């Protein structure tokens, strides 16, 4: 059988499983996002390692909803406050809880905001610091973890979460066995799909409640800049 098809079938099965097991929570999370936004809040996103992809899938996306804001390690990189080695190779940056202070000092955060924290392992001191600080202020936390990794790594992020999603892949996340070599992953794509399911449910929330929804257009479509700026300008630096 074509190994590309073997991979695709595995991916599709993982997507179905994610839907079957996570749908109820996806709907609750979408409602939490909608209520946060209705209350003048911004949904703050922070992802660790490949968790960044889930963040990117919600933040300022064509066909997505505003306002989300990404708290981005890249903002430290371009200020030479850390190195690519620490971010992409050793992942040492995530072991430094004080990075929280550096990052958050660059953003305009608000007590009405909600936090989404994405970490396969749920054990990195930096992501735990985000959770602890949000909890102290009484803000809602949505966690996204890969439970099989989380259990193996002694994660504690879920101790702080009001609700959480499971990325639903095995530990390690390897999709296909090629003659003894394990290769390919499905976890990120499955979480991207869960992010889009949240978007769909969030759209439904706004339509049912207000008859319209703050949907962003692709920047590569005529007129998108004007439309998108009208949605995000009211939040100023809170979303930039």
């Amino acid at each position: 059988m074509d190994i590309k098809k073997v991979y695709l079938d595995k991916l599709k099965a993982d997507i179905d499983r994610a839907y079957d097991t996570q749908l109820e929570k996806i709907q609750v999370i979408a409602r939490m996002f909608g209520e946060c936004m209705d209350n003048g809040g911004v949904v703050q996103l922070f992802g660790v390692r490949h968790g960044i992809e889930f963040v990117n899938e919600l933040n300022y996306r064509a066909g997505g909803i505003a306002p989300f804001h990404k708290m981005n390690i890249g903002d430290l990189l371009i200020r030479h406050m850390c190195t690519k080695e620490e971010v992409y190779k050793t992942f040492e940056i995530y072991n430094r809880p004080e990075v929280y202070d550096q990052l958050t000092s660059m953003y305009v955060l608000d007590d009405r905001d909600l936090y989404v924290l994405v970490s396969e392992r749920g054990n990195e001191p930096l992501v735990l610091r985000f959770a602890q600080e949000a909890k102290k202020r009484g803000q809602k936390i949505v966690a996204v973890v890969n439970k099989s990794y989380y259990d193996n790594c002694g994660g504690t992020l879920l101790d702080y979460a009001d609700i959480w999603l499971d990325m639903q892949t095995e530990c390690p996340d390897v999709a296909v066995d090629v003659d003894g070599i394990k290769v390919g992953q499905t976890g990120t794509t499955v979480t991207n799909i869960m992010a889009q399911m949240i978007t769909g449910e969030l759209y439904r929330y706004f339509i049912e409640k207000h008859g319209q929804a703050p949907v962003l257009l692709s920047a590569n479509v005529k007129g998108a800049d004007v439309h998108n700026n009208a949605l995000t300008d009211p939040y100023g630096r809170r979303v930039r």
Partner: protein
Amino acid sequence: MTVDAKVFLDKIQSLLDHLYESQKDVIEETAQLMARCIENDGVVHVFGSGHSVGLAIDISLREGSLVPVHIIENADAVILGEFTLEEFTDKVNKFERRQGVAQYFYNLYDIRENDIFFVISNSGINGVGIDFAMLAKENGHKVIVITSMEHTLAEASRHPSGKKLYMLGDVVIDNCGPHGDALLPTNGIEKVCSVSSICNNAVAQMAAVRTVEILKEHGYNPPVLTGDEAHDRELKEHYKGRI
């Protein structure tokens, strides 16, 4: 039109089937190019603007991933290059729209003769991606393009040549996403739930697993991270400075 998680699930599953059926041959060609590149000690460079770079993150840096994959990031102009933060974030003279950006990145990295390039752009109409593909071809590299054909055929090129990215690929993969990237129609003018990252990831993962299979068929030991610390360290060391 109903929009919810179930509608998205059904549509994305159908789209993934269509993606495989319509693109399996060009994904096969891509895997053949990747395998040849790796056998010749080459590196696969990935250039994508905005969300397009997510594909490179998905197929690298973890267990089960090919090692010789290099992500070209705009921010490297500041992190590794000599651009200042102010120049990079200038809202008027936008960095990615400046003349010579592609050449700047080409010079910034250790790019070698047998390397190949993925250039990814959903719209395929913006200058820097088109410049990058042209430059890579001028320097004799194979170029694999991933784009949305529906989107790119609906919009005018923003490149002075009038060309679009798909015109420059040795292999062109259609990610089968719709114009504007959002999949689900609504009762209003807007559409919701984008698919390009999902489809791009699926394409790249299918190409990667097939690449490993081809390498095995050729008797070449595939450079894949296994989770074994010593093995993985040795592999990364081999490509040091290039990935």
